[in-house]
């Protein structure tokens, strides 16, 4: 029960801090909106198919959702370090992963907000719709995709805290994931070797299921994709358990908790 309360407190405090952060607001409002706008303007020409419009409609929101999860939730530990509160967080009886989980859930909720401006732009600005939406399967796919984002955030958080080189590559990886996970176009257009890398990322399968639920065309192996998403996510969660133990040990051994 105390863990639930602690995670809820971390969720609440992280949301409070996001509301007053220019960067956080930009993250859900401006950045996905800009990318969605680019996509929609590119698609705004004769001959664009319904499937392509779907990617324009949902792509910006997915990019915002992922971007916030990756940057905000993934930096759950690093943000405490930059804030100078990492030592205090470490020294409480609540395990670090509980606190990071609360913050990551906050990041996910915040990231979901990206869909509001992007879908609004697509609908009101470009009249893009989802006429063949299978709401039930869409909802399940969305939930499963969310779970994959959470799993990755929980494994990235200790990684970024431990290895600053991983963090310095952050922007590249974020954009790279837009490509590899098929947020704004199907990964089937990528070269084979890139698709093989995509297959190792849980959001790839969740995204595939999500888009499949918006159209009657193409394969509809929902169960297989959901299982792949959840299964791979559990692997990442397993890694995160190991990584949290490692960061605890390493931070205490090197005394780097107080260092920015």
């Amino acid at each position, binding site marked *: 029960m105390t863990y639930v309360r602690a995670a809820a407190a971390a969720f609440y405090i992280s949301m409070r801090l996001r509301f007053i952060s*220019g*960067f956080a607001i*930009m993250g859900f409002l*401006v*950045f996905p909106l*800009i*990318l969605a*706008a*680019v*996509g929609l*303007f*590119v*698609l*705004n*020409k004769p001959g*664009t198919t319904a499937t*392509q419009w779907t*990617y*324009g409609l949902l792509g910006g929101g997915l990019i915002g959702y992922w971007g916030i999860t990756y940057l905000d939730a993934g930096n759950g530990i690093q943000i405490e370090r930059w804030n100078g509160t990492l030592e205090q967080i470490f020294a409480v009886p609540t395990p670090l992963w509980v606190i990071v989980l609360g913050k990551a859930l906050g990041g996910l909720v915040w990231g979901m907000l990206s869909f509001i401006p992007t879908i609004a732009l697509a609908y009101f600005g470009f009249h893009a719709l989802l006429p063949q939406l299978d709401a039930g399967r869409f909802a399940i796919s969305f939930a499963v995709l969310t779970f994959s984002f959470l799993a990755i955030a929980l494994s990235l958080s200790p990684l970024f805290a431990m290895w600053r*080189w*991983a963090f*310095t*590559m*952050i*922007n*590249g*990886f*974020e*954009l*790279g994931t*837009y*490509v590899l996970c098929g947020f*704004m*176009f*199907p990964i089937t*257009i*990528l070269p084979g070797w890139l698709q093989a890398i995509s297959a190792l990322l849980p959001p790839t399968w969740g995204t595939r299921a999500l888009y499949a639920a918006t159209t009657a065309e193409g394969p509809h192996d929902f169960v297989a994709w959901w299982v792949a998403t959840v299964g791979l996510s559990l692997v990442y969660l397993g890694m995160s358990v190991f990584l949290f133990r490692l960061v605890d040990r390493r931070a205490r051994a090197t005394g780097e908790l107080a260092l920015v």
Partner: protein
Amino acid sequence: MTRALSQVAVFGRSIWLQYVALFQWATIPGYIGYKLILPVAQILFFVEFGVFATGQQNALYFALGNALQLTANAGIFGVIATVANERQFGTLPVLLGSPANRLVTFLSRAIVNVIDGVLSVLIGLLVAAIVFRLDVWHGNLPLLALCIVVISLTTAGLGLLFGSLGLIMRDAIVVANIIYYGLLITGGVNFPVSRLPGAMQTVAYALPLTRGVEAAREAVAGASFTQVASLLAGELAVGLAWAALGYVVFRAFEGYARRGGLQDAY
């Protein structure tokens, strides 16, 4: 003589700070992440999306546009980083208190970033040409190179404004981020500017990059200098206008600082 030497000293110190700002991530992973992975990922993303949306034949269009837009990263964020470093190293009061030529000091901030911008574009284009097997080699390469230099100058001009704003605004970097990504919409990077609503087209042509990208596309298609001269002239004028505005803000800040309003700045 002393005055000239002091000007040189301030100029030199400014250049050094930019260098430090530029290489503040000076580890090999940092360099790889910032200079290679990020540009390549951006180009990869937009080329693949562009091909999905409009066909394989347009791959060069998206690759060229996005490679050119990369220079804005150096131009805008590079200058802001310089200002942040001046504040962190405590040289801001020194700079303002010195008798150095203000214009020289101001412009010196952008020099290293212009060079960095050119390099970013070249790396991006080279990688795109190799990965997507794009034919850029049959175009007017010297003219393309000129376009790249011009765009680097003009985006640095915009960066100078944000650098100055960064002295008086706490969240200038947030605004800078919005403008930087906004250039993806206005710069003719991923789609023709003519697709934008009328008012937005006006904004597009008031910002750097737009005319430069058009000129660069012409150059790749084999155009001669005279055919794009007016575009390049327009691009330079826009960049100069933004730099001039940045200079006005810079001098306004000086006045503000002298009247004791430095608390927010530090």
